[in-house]
């Protein structure tokens, strides 16, 4: 299996959805990362994982990942239609240089439908990731990612 595909219906204006995807600060808010600049087609951008200030327990679990940096390579930004980037999935293992390893391609595409915006997310290219990396990454980072997701939920909830 080489590809993940998700579809989700968003009941919000197209411009709102596009801003949440294409503005790196907004993207970081729901995704849970702090990027060091804006998304620009054809450029590399660094992001950093930071422990939450919202929940002490989650923050404690996040602590080992504090400052963990990763890079994305922004590919395309087609206003209100498509946003894509490449990255190294799960590239949070300390001391590992991922630069030479294959990347996966993440694509968000938007389509206006009768009752909202249909967002399709695909992530492809997993076949090129060494099996060993897949196995190791999973064993090493499951706990961290689960916490990461909990954190985003808490943050978005409290922001309202």
């Amino acid at each position, binding site marked *: 299996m080489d590809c993940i595909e998700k579809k*989700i219906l968003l009941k919000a204006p197209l411009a709102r*959805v596009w801003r*949440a995807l294409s503005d790196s600060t907004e993207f970081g808010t729901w995704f849970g990362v702090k990027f060091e600049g804006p998304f620009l087609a054809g450029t590399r951008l660094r992001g950093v994982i930071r422990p939450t200030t919202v929940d002490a327990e989650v923050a404690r679990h996040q602590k080992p990942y504090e400052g963990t940096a990763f890079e994305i390579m922004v590919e395309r930004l087609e206003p209100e239609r498509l946003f894509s980037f490449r990255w190294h999935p799960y590239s949070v293992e300390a001391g590992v240089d991922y630069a030479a390893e294959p990347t996966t391609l993440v694509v968000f595409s938007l389509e206006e439908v009768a009752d909202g915006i249909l967002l399709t997310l695909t992530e492809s290219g997993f076949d090129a990731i060494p099996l060993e990396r897949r*196995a190791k990454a999973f064993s090493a980072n499951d706990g961290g990612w689960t916490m990461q997701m909990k954190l985003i939920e808490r943050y*978005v909830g409290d922001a309202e």
Partner: protein
Amino acid sequence: MSIANLTEHSRVTRQAIRKHLRVMEESGLVRSSRHGRESIWQLERRRLEDARRYLDSISKQWDGALARLREFVEDGG
């Protein structure tokens, strides 16, 4: 399983299979032990399972992230 077992009903050469097994061994997906002149190969099921779960786990992360995105845009965040 020995190389002899593995090649018995196959057109792939022993040499090719041995090469594949060595690569898999380096990744920790199989391991071998010597029995006399033969190497006996065993699958490391846990490692294979981990590799499969890797994709499931990324898939679940996206479910979580997209649910947060929905909350974010629908609640006027």
